[in-house]
């Protein structure tokens, strides 16, 4: 099978990042000035006239500014250009985010760390899954372009060019030059890479500007012109220029000659995505209201979700970090660090944007902010393989079990994971400890998938269950001490029919008492062993407001044998 590589070129990525920075600095109001970007780790490098321009936006390009120019040269072209300093690491991190989205289209993805504008995807044998290479190319372009870098919806769409060819160089060259050469194909058929390149300028080979100028003086303007030169002569000429590329890296001369001969076999270097996904938003003015924070959360979660889904992964832990305005935090009496971190585990791994958003929103929207938030970060710190749901043809269409993980996460975030789960029977003689709420995944892990695979292990011991007498359906979390109306004191006994008892402020009359069971020295090794006589007591409630009827019910009451106190423990309901 012929190798097929897709090149995703973001020609304006650096300038788009710079525009986002400028927008944040200017309080969201675009200045309309042309942008030139200086790629440097030193923050003041853009003020240095000798520094090189690394990238430009369309407006700067229209003014004649090109990457590779000195800043002073660019200034001489026009005074209406803003020079922005950008760290190459920021550009690489942004490119990595795009690469994570691109991972959904092929098994191997490479990021071009030298040019900082290209991602390659090995799409060999996958095009038919998308309906052909043309559809695949459009899908890649749409998905990558939709990953917005800022929370303000800017840019609304990234400039992206995607081309598919037999090798990484052919695909990259086609993607880079297709906007300038409308007749250039975006997809080079298998074996037709060299043919598709023939009308491209020599500069498309990535040779140094001196080398390109030299060939230009000789009248060698296109790759087909270069291809007609005798290989021995061409090799010596290329060697004399040492073939440094425009980006500074030295081109392998055999690689360049291979491209001219129709060979582009360089293997891709797999991109290694980070183990923790982080995205952040900064606010120049600070955010005081939680609803506006929720709006920012939506943007962050949207990007994180796209990256997760590209990696075919999901997260089961989310951390939200809020950094506050230090001065206002201190003025309002805040102590310690002017930041807070909310971390919560998700009962099920999530990756879809709506599911993630609901989980985070439930946590964030009720926050009381001690000071304006100037930075919001979301960390997805526990990344796992995304669960895949099998297509179930017999499922009832009106019930959607796939919605359960998202619901669990949302409820856990809102009311706490300890309040959501399934009931499990614990092996204990004390009724109040025989029922426990456990997480769904914990419970599922302790239960065999099918009964035929073996006896149930610990959650519910069938034999023990059937040997136990029936218990009430409602058990109070804590037994309630009953008091007597007549004695007005703490102790009720002698406990007999006709007696009036108080459950809190509610009076009931005892109609019938039947002995149910006895617990003798349960948990004798503790300081408070339980010795109880359980009684099934039919009680009568008096008529209440608006009705003359009385009603009866079966209460589960026990007498603490050590003290003689009487407790209500449950209801047969």
């Amino acid at each position, binding site marked *: 099978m012929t190798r097929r590589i897709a090149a995703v070129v973001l020609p304006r990525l650096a300038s788009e990042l710079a525009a986002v920075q400028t927008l944040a600095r200017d309080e969201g109001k675009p200045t309309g000035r042309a942008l030139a970007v200086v790629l440097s780790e030193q923050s003041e490098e853009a003020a240095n006239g000798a520094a090189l321009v690394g990238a430009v936006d369309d407006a700067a390009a229209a003014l004649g500014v090109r990457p590779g120019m000195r800043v002073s040269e660019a200034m001489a072209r026009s005074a209406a250009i803003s020079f922005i300093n950008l760290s190459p690491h920021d550009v690489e991190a942004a490119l990595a985010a795009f690469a994570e989205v691109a991972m959904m289209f092929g098994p191997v993805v490479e990021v071009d760390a030298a040019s900082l504008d290209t991602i390659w995807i090995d799409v060999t044998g996958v095009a038919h899954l998308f309906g052909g290479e043309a559809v695949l190319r459009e899908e890649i372009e749409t998905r990558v372009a939709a990953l917005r870098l800022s929370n303000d919806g800017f840019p609304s769409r990234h400039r992206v060019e995607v081309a598919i060819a037999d090798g990484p160089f052919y695909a990259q060259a086609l993607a880079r030059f297709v906007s300038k050469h409308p007749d250039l194909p975006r997809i080079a058929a298998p074996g037709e890479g060299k043919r598709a390149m023939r009308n491209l300028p020599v500069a498309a080979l990535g040779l140094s500007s001196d080398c390109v100028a030299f060939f230009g003086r000789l009248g060698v303007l296109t790759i087909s012109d270069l291809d007609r030169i005798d290989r021995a002569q061409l090799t010596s000429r290329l060697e004399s220029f040492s073939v440094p590329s425009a980006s500074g890296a030295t081109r392998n001369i055999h690689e360049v000659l291979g491209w001219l001969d129709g060979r582009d076999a360089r293997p891709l270097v797999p991109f290694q995505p980070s183990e923790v996904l982080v995205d952040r938003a900064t606010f120049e003015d600070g955010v005081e209201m939680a609803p506006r924070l929720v709006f920012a959360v939506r943007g962050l979660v949207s990007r994180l979700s796209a990256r997760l889904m590209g990696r075919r992964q999901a997260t089961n832990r989310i951390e939200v970090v809020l950094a506050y305005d230090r001065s206002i935090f201190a003025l309002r009496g805040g102590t310690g660090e002017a930041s807070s971190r909310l971390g919560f585990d998700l009962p099920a791994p999530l990756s879809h944007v709506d599911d993630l958003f609901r989980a985070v929103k439930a946590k964030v929207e009720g926050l009381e902010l001690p000071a304006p938030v100037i930075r919001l970060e979301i960390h997805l710190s526990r990344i796992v393989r995304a669960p895949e749901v099998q297509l179930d043809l017999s499922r009832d269409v009106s019930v959607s079990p796939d919605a359960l993980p998202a*619901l669990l996460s949302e409820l856990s975030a809102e*009311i706490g994971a300890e*309040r959501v789960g*399934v009931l499990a*029977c614990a092996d204990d003689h004390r009724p109040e400890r025989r029922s426990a709420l456990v997480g769904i995944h914990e419970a*599922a892990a302790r239960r065999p998938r099918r*009964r035929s695979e073996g006896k149930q292990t610990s959650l*519910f011991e069938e034999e023990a269950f059937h040997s136990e*007498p029936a218990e009430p359906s409602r058990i109070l979390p804590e037994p309630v001490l009953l008091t007597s109306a007549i004695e007005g004191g703490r102790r009720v006994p002698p406990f007999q029919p006709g007696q009036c008892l108080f459950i809190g402020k509610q009076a009931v009359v005892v109609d019938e008492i039947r002995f149910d069971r006895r617990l003798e020295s349960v948990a004798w090794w503790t300081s408070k062993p339980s010795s109880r006589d359980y009684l099934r007591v039919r009680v009568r409630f008096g008529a209440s407001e608006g009705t003359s009827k009385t009603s009866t019910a079966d209460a589960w009451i026990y007498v603490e044998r050590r003290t003689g106190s009487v407790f209500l423990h449950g209801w047969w*309901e």
Partner: protein
Amino acid sequence: MSAVALAPQLPHQLRSAVEDRLSEILARTSAPADRAKPLPLSLRTALDVAAEGAAAEGVATEGLHASTIDELLPDGGLPRGAVIELASPRVLGRSTSVALAACAAAQAEARLRSGDPQTVGAWCAFVDPWSTLHAPTVKRSGVDPMRLLVVRPPLDALARVVVRIAQSRAFSMIVVDLAGVPGAEIAMEGASSSVRLDRWVNIVRRIALALEKTDSSVLLLTDALAPRPLPLPVAMRLELDRNAHDRWSLRIAKERHGRVGPAMAMTAGAAR
């Protein structure tokens, strides 16, 4: 006998119930015009099977005969895609047993659809703000506790949580306890004994909207004695009461087609 071949490993006590329900389901699927109208949820299958199974194993059971309840209900079961109110004085009229039976029936029906009793049933939810539902009884009611999501929200988040659960469409049956049993508020230290039903009128409307065109149902367990300036806009209101030992009554106080009537006597199951 139904035309459907039942799985040979199906327990004896399930067979007749399975045959009846399968016949109904097949009749439904073979008449496309009727598909839009969901069958009512019959409690008989779940409750009687649970009682028979328990009796066969020598376990004493409590409860009402579900077949009796089915017979008293206008369509032979609980309506689907609707909010049903189950009111009883102080929530002590066996409404918990009926609610668990409804969950068991919903789970059993999913197993019947697959024809394999080993298949896990449908998901149900029980919203229990007072944390009083007891696991052994849930199991004894024929409910698979591993498919019953129990949520114990604080009372101030109860409405929000219930609406969200209904909107998720992940559950066949959702039970919401709106009034704690006597003593629950003392055990919970400061929690109210019931929610204010006047605030639930709009919430019930939202839940009903979420249930539209689904087969899911929501059962609200309420205190029949609680003050309510307006009745809840539910599709059906059932009132369970116990006047004396083993004298239970069921009254259909509200039904969307107006089929209401006086209280009807029911018999309780075998008592210990």
